[in-house]
């Protein structure tokens, strides 16, 4: 069981209201991964959105570029909410990692029930997509070296 207090501590949710946090907590679950494991692979179906709680994750893009996520509150797996619902990167654990896991389907149900919540959430997701665009769309390292 995930509590609203835990979600409130995450930077990603700092703009969310208490009832919204309560709804998110009701669909959230804990997820633990060991060092060296891949949480998801690029190109695979994206059923979950994750929030980093503790540990370090390396987001590896197919072009060879990568982005380490170290602090709690980083979101990964935004593709669970954005078509074509396939992960755009591989998430590799550089240490033992703890995450909050949200089902994409359940999030969509919450978005349909509360438009303001949906707008706030998608605004955050859009910000993350923009931040990581340079990594995602950079020239492939293999082509660069050729």
């Amino acid at each position, binding site marked *: 069981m995930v509590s609203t207090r835990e979600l409130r501590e995450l930077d990603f949710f700092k703009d969310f209201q208490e009832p919204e946090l309560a709804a998110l907590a009701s669909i959230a679950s804990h997820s633990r991964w060991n060092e060296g494991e891949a949480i998801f692979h690029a190109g695979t179906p994206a059923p979950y959105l994750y929030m980093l709680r503790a540990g370090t994750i390396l987001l590896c893009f197919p072009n*060879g570029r990568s982005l380490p996520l170290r602090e709690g509150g980083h979101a990964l797996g935004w593709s669970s909410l954005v078509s074509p619902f396939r992960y755009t990167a591989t998430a590799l654990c550089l240490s033992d990692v703890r995450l909050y896991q949200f089902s994409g389907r359940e999030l969509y149900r919450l978005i349909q029930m509360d438009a303001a919540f949906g707008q706030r959430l998608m605004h955050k997701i859009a910000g993350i997509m923009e931040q990581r665009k340079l990594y995602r769309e*950079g020239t492939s390292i293999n082509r660069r070296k050729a």
Partner: protein
Amino acid sequence: MYGLQAINAANGWAVTIAGVSIVFTGLLVLAAVMGNMERFLALWDRKGEFFRPGKGKLEAQPVRQAAAPGEPIKPAVAETAAVALASEQIEAANAFQLITNRLGEPFSLPQLLEKAAVHGISHPHRHLESFLKLRLIVESEGDQPGLYQWRKDVRIVGTEAEVS
């Protein structure tokens, strides 16, 4: 003539000593080469650097500052930070550097991890995380987001050296 007399007459002792010397010299050379094989292989891996354009340009050399008349000349010292690592981490760092020397800088972290696994380096993810945290490996600047390089202004020391 038989026996020792025959050996003396045919310079047998000199031939024996020469033969033993040659054999043992050869064994010594072989032992020295095998004992330093790791160093030779590291030099071989770096051979490309010797032929790269710009060879001979020295990096981060201290520059003597011009002093005002009457003032003693103070030699400038290149600023390098020291990072203390355990012996296991130093070993991993050396192994990573051999790999990144082949990959070239800036390099891809997923490729580094892949090669590290192939080379049998233990706990490569954990070591990479500590090198990123200690900023031994940093993201390349400019238009290369997501690619990384070793910091040049940092030197690695063993924790035993710090204690001593």
